[in-house]
């Protein structure tokens, strides 16, 4: 492993606006009267409900069990009564099933499993089972079950563990604060995951714009026998493939997974969730989320329990001074725009972001002037301008030939386009069309 990180080709440097919340310590959100826990919080199969309306639950009680291997269980954020199995708007705008829990205010704890104090001498398989039982998912945004990544199939050898602390999305500071305030746990989490994978050590990759977090992690890393790698600031540094390249120099082949090049990438927040699960016996029921944006009175970072409505998050941040143009879950580059304040915090909600009116204007898309800025910044080295024209002509076969499937939807091309073309949108559409075509063929 080299000392100097490689710079991946392309990338953009948007104004990061992290100063709004980077200095704010993580604050635990107060106990609410009710929580609406969205059932399906992971990529893969939805979990199976094990409670019914009227059941009494405690903090940490199992609400739903894993509905398959690529699925995770769900636990109650507090003690109380299951008021209803209801529907709430999900992050994509579609109504999704949720479990509404009326809190009794006691916040009584019921451990679903015992802490594993001596994890260093525990069977890795047992540790992995714990990660699964605790319902840990990729908390950087994807929500991919953590235990699946830790279970490489036969024939694939993993030799490198990378913790993703790049946090390259502008505005977001949740991972930054977590690495700063729980540096020891992040490093410990890295060591635990390394043990599960049968590795000696792991690398924590952090963008250079968080020097305090890097310093804190370096101190902690020595203790736990892991290393910290400072990375150049370049969006999308935190994209899995780009991160692996920066740290190991390996290119994940198009359509393949990190494990195909011997790597496992986990988010730093997932690592602390794993520490909680293993060392403290606490399932994944809370996470650090950045609530930020220029229209907010008091942006900051909060420790929310899952099922907390976005409206509560915004109230904790002091409410707004002006009507924002957009409400996003996630960062401004890849976040999902919301039309309701009833969406609730999920395991993968890294940020709640308000975008001011003057930060977005309604652009009309103009013709491509072939300036090549998108080609320059594409981290996957495809030709966004040409693919976009193919999509406009509904030639999805062309788009496929031009490797649209390699697109990671980072949005760098749309960000840089002087004609404000909806490039990212075109590629998402092309991918859906191509996949639909494949399904039709069988």
């Amino acid at each position, binding site marked *: 492993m080299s000392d100097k990180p490689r710079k991946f080709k392309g990338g953009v440097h948007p104004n990061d606006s992290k100063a709004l919340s980077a200095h704010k310590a993580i604050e635990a959100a107060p106990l609410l009267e009710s929580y609406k826990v969205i059932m399906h919080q992971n990529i893969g199969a939805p979990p199976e409900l094990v409670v019914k309306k009227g059941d009494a639950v405690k903090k940490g009680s199992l609400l739903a069990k894993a509905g398959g291997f690529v699925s995770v269980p769900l636990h109650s954020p507090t003690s109380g009564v299951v008021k209803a199995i209801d529907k709430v708007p999900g992050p994509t705008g579609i109504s999704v099933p949720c479990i509404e829990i009326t809190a009794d205010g006691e916040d009584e704890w019921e451990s679903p499993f015992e802490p594993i104090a001596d994890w260093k001498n525990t069977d890795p398989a047992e540790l992995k089972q714990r990660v699964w039982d605790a319902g840990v998912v990729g908390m950087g945004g994807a929500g991919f079950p953590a235990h699946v990544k830790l279970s490489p199939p036969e024939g694939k050898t993993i030799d490198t563990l990378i913790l993703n602390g790049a946090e390259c999305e502008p505005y977001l500071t949740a991972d930054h604060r977590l690495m700063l305030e729980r540096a020891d746990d992040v490093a410990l989490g890295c060591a635990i995951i390394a043990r599960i994978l049968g590795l000696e050590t792991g690398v924590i990759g952090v963008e250079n714009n968080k020097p305090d977090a890097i310093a804190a992690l370096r101190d902690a890393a020595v203790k736990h026998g892991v290393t910290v790698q400072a990375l150049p600031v370049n969006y999308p540094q935190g994209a899995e493939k780009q991160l692996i390249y920066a740290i190991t120099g390996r290119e994940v082949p198009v359509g393949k997974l990190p494990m195909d090049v011997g790597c496992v990438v986990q988010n730093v927040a997932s690592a602390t969730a794993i520490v909680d699960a293993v060392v403290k016996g606490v399932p994944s029921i809370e996470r650090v989320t950045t609530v930020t944006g220029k*229209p907010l009175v008091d942006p900051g970072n909060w420790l929310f329990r899952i099922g907390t409505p976005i409206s*509560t998050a*915004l109230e904790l941040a002091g409410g707004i001074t002006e009507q924002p143009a957009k409400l996003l879950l996630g960062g401004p580059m890849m976040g999902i725009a919301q039309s309701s304040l009833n969406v609730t915090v999920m395991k993968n909600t890294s940020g709640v972001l*308000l975008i001011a009116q003057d930060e977005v204007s309604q652009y009309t898309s103009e013709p491509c002037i072939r300036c090549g800025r998108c080609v320059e910044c594409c981290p996957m080295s495809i030709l966004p301008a040409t693919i976009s024209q193919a999509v406009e002509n509904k030639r999805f076969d062309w788009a496929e030939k031009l490797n649209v499937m390699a697109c990671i939807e980072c949005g760098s091309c749309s*960000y840089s386009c002087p004609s404000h073309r909806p490039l990212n949108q075109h590629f998402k559409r092309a991918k859906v069309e191509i996949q639909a075509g494949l399904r039709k063929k069988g």
Partner: protein
Amino acid sequence: MSEETPSIRLPDPTRLVVSNSPHMRDKPTIKRIMFTVVAAMAPACVAAVLFFGVAAVQTLLLCVLSCVFAEEGWNKLVKRSSTWKDGSAILSGILLGMNLNAGTPWWVCLLGGALAMILGKQLYGGLGYNPFNPVLVARVGLLIGFPGIMTTWDKPAMGVMAVDGVTAATPLGLAPGETFVKDMLLGNVGGCLGETSAIALLIGGAILLWFKLIKWEVPLAFIGTVFVITGVAHLVNPEAFHSPFVHILTGGLLLGAFFMATDMVTSPMTRKGCWIFGFGCGLITSLIRLWGAYPEGVSFAILFMNALTPLIDRGTTSKPFGFATPVKGEA
């Protein structure tokens, strides 16, 4: 909950915009790019006015006006929305003016503007769709239509008030050995408005490079190729061929290499493609200048390479990230 705490204001969900990511945009717009290029043309325009006086102002103004009116007239005719404010027609007008002689008759300027905007651009669908550089289409059209007018150049008079009617040939048309590099650097030589002052053009080129509006590969490959080929020719036969410095500093080479060949719409998007494009432009320019029927070949060279641009782009598409390393044991 908000009723209990009326002092805290929450967003009105009905007024939230829902759109696809990304939700941030970089600053440059088409308009900004176009007007930056116009600004980069300013030193050369000032030099042209200093050397050629009122005649230069008249030519530039007429060209800009004719381009803007031709574009807007066409938009009206085919019922498209107005586009002149994006600055591309204004830029084309200035570039066209720089490609004409100071004393060009007014009707040639107007015809040139119409040719550039309608034949060169709008017939293909407007900005972004034209395969050829519109200004060069107009220039070549006028050159073929009115060879006399297009190849007689006013000799510049130092000072604001120029004396009209003193004509001179482009140094490229003279016998080798008659030209002076210092005069050419400043611009005290015959030629069209944009061909005279090399220093002003280099300043403009530097502005474009600074703002990353052009890819440096194009001018470097273009000028470098001309320098090498004409240099070799000069070394072999100094009697028949100009020194490479004369070739670089005269004619439309600097104007062409920095402002015309680098036109975003008609040049390749890939870095590798830009090298090929620049080299091709340089090669054809050199061939025409050394052995062709015209003393000048920049316009033809760029137009020819414009036609090859789609092919170059296709041939130089880089492999996507992760494409070059297929997994072992995979079919």
